[in-house]
Structure formats: structure tokens, C-alpha cells
């Protein structure tokens, strides 16, 4: 592995916001393609940070800053890419279900998804099912991530599933759930499509859906 690619990973891992621009430019100067820099440098760097977060070594602030480092690098890389290749991986609607206000987990999922090329439409907290499906209609987003931490509000997940059915869109959307009070069993009970325990799971699931779309 080229030293300069390792430097990209390292800059993300050490949250080096001021250094990343120079490092990415150096990679390009050495003839590395933007795609390779993203695949081997940026994505791998984010994986390191994500793992450290799951293991409790990093906190939310580290993740946010890592996201900023990536945000700093992307315009430099996009400028050198063919317009077709710079396309987003697709739109994901994220929301904390109606009646619940916990948003830290949802925000982390949003961060990881957008740093990995998804276009995230974050509707915030306490979001009614209708608003979620209206957004799906108007934006064309077909991937939906719901976060729930309050046990009493898990039925709001079913509301989203039912609302999508009533709108005639149940087959077109994928509804993924997560948040500390959700489980695989709950996912089946509520009629959602998938359950993810962590933000990294969320990324894997949405990547899979995208691949099979």
C-alpha cells in the first residue's frame, strides 16, 4: 500500500482536518485515481474510526470530526472524477419515530451513511409516519431508516409500515430499524425489512439494498 494512501487513512483516524487537503492532493499528484483514494483511503479510514467507536475508544465527537475530515477531502476528489462516477449512492430518509426524541444514534447513522456516499435526508425527531412517506414520494428516496429508543413508541414503526402500504409503496421502499429498544424479533413483529444493531450495520444493510436494487 502506498504511503500516501496510508496517510489518508491516518488523517481520518487522527481527525487531521487541517492536513487532509494537502495529503489528498499529494495522492493525486502521485497519480492515484480519486476512486482508489476513496476506496482505499477514505472508506478504510472511516472503517477504522467506526470500529474504534463501536469498541468504545472513540466518542461521538470523534465520529463527527472524522466526517468533517472526509467532507473536506471530497470536493478535491470530486473535481477530478467523471461526473457519472461522482454520483451519490442514493437517498436515505432517516427519522426518529413519532413520540420519541432520542437522536444521537440516528445522527451517527446519518454521519456514517453520508460519509460513505449516501444522500441523507434527516427528518429529525418525533416524526409522523405521513411525513416520512410524503418525503419518500417527493424525493424519490426508497431507503428509510427509523430510530427508536423508547419502548412505548415502537408501535410508531408499524405506523410507518402501514402508511407505506396504504400509499401503495410498501414494495418500493425498504424500512430499516435500529435504536437501543429494537431487535430482530421486533423488526419482524412490526413488519419492517431489516434490523441493524449499530451504525456500521446500518451502512452494511443500506449498501446491500443498494446493490440489489
Amino acid at each position, binding site marked *: 500500500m502506498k504511503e500516501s494512501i496510508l496517510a489518508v487513512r491516518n488523517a481520518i483516524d487522527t*481527525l487531521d*482536518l*487541517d492536513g487532509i487537503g494537502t495529503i489528498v492532493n499529494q495522492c493525486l499528484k502521485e497519480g492515484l485515481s480519486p476512486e482508489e483514494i476513496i476506496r482505499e483511503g477514505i472508506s478504510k479510514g472511516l472503517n477504522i474510526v467506526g470500529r474504534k467507536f463501536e469498541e*468504545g475508544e472513540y466518542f*461521538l*465527537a*470523534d465520529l*463527527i*470530526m472524522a*466526517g*468533517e475530515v472526509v467532507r473536506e477531502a471530497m470536493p478535491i476528489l470530486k473535481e477530478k472524477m467523471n461526473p457519472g462516477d461522482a454520483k451519490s449512492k442514493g437517498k436515505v430518509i432517516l427519522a426518529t419515530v*413519532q*413520540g*420519541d*426524541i432520542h*437522536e444521537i444514534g440516528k*445522527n451517527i447513522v*446519518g*454521519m456514517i451513511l*453520508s460519509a460513505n456516499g449516501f444522500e441523507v435526508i434527516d427528518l429529525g*425527531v*418525533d416524526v409522523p409516519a405521513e411525513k416520512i412517506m410524503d418525503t419518500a414520494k417527493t424525493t424519490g428516496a426508497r431507503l428509510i431508516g427509523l430510530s427508536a429508543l*423508547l*419502548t*412505548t*413508541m415502537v408501535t410508531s414503526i408499524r405506523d410507518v409500515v402501514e402508511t407505506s402500504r396504504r400509499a401503495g409503496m410498501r414494495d418500493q421502499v425498504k424500512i430499516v430499524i435500529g435504536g*437501543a429498544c429494537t431487535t430482530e424479533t421486533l423488526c419482524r413483529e412490526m413488519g419492517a425489512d431489516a434490523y441493524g444493531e449499530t451504525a456500521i450495520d446500518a451502512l452494511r444493510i443500506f449498501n446491500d439494498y443498494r446493490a440489489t436494487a
Partner: protein
Amino acid sequence: MTSNPPDLVILEEIPFTVDEKGFFELLKIRPGSRHAAELADIFNEARTAARPKAAFAVAPVDDKSDDTVSIAGVRFKSRILAVNLKDANVAYPFIATCGQELEKWSSHMSGTLHSFWADTIKLLALGCAMGHLEAYLKERLGSAALSTMNPGSLEDWPLTEQKPLFGIIGGGAEKIGVSLTERMVLLPLKSVSGIHFISEEGFTNCRLCPRQHCDLRREAYEPALYTVRYGCG
């Protein structure tokens, strides 16, 4: 049973005691880095705007049964609350909030980074309100054995019990700018509700909360406690 309206105490002058250096460390912003000046501005704005607040009631515990307890004439359904209050004559229903001032201030924040900073500030302000209220009560009561329960934390005392709680503390909530939506959400979002009480035995939700992976766990989960202390299933 008739009950006198409980005394309400409003704490409006709670200082925003967040240490700037610690705040920068928490957010991983290095001094002298590009974001440091931006964050310093935001922090100063917030410090000027912040008015964390709390309200509590001094409420008589007037009737107890196995699974319910009446406080200031308002009935709560929770076995755990009833058992926890079995030796108490007075309970202190409360609400603490980051305050509408910060909520309003943060509404102009946009982008992941600034929104995250503003959210952290609001949570820290809520922390100031909660800490201040606890210290105030401990001093006023001359006791360190202060415990807390929050509606919605445990299955035994569900979120719908925000309603009776507001029945007692509602007037105080209004004074500190906190409201309850139909879906039992407290506004501003960075607010919490609950009941403080004196208990020599002590109580934390954690001991009855099975959730793994919680950075904020203060005590270990004790599944047997339900049966041993509360005589539940």
C-alpha cells in the same frame, strides 16, 4: 381524598457552569485549529443565551397501595414507585430543562458540525439544571440520600405517567417554559421529568434496566431485584 396544592419551587437562575477548556476537549477541537475560533464564538453566544431552569413541587405522599401511590392527590400507577415511596411522607416531582432561550438560539444552527455543537451545549445546559436541582434539594433536605425515578424509564412506570406528573408540576413547567405534547414528549426536547425522593436504601433505574452497552450505567443490572425488593413476577 383532598389534598392541599403542593408548594412549587422555581429555579430560574441556574448558572451555565460549563468549563470552556473541557468543552473544547469534549468536542475534539484543538486550540489554534481552524474550527477553534468558530467554536469559541458559538460557545460564547451560548453562554450568554443559556438559562437552564428547573421546577419542583414539595408534594405530600398521601396514600399508598401495593401498585399505586397518590402524591398531592394525584394517583400514579407503579409498583416500583409505590415501594420506593413506602417510607416517604413527601416526594419532589420535578422538571429540568436546557431552557427555551438556548432552544431558540440553536434554531439558526445548520450543518452537521454546528448542529452537533449546539446539541451538545443544550445537553450540557440540561445537565447544569439537573445537577443544580439535585444539589439544591440535598441541601434543603439536609440529606444526601436523594433518589430519582423518571416516567418512561421502566416498563412498570410508563411514559403515559407524564400526564399525572404534569398534573402536579404543570404550573411550574409553564413557568420554566416546558410543555408536554399529546404523545408525551417534553418540549424543549432537552428536558427531563421525574420524581425525586429520599430513600436510605437508594434507587437508580440502572439496577432494573437490562440494557447492555450503556456508557452511562451507574450501577449493575440486578434482575433478581424485581422479585426480592418489589415482589414483582
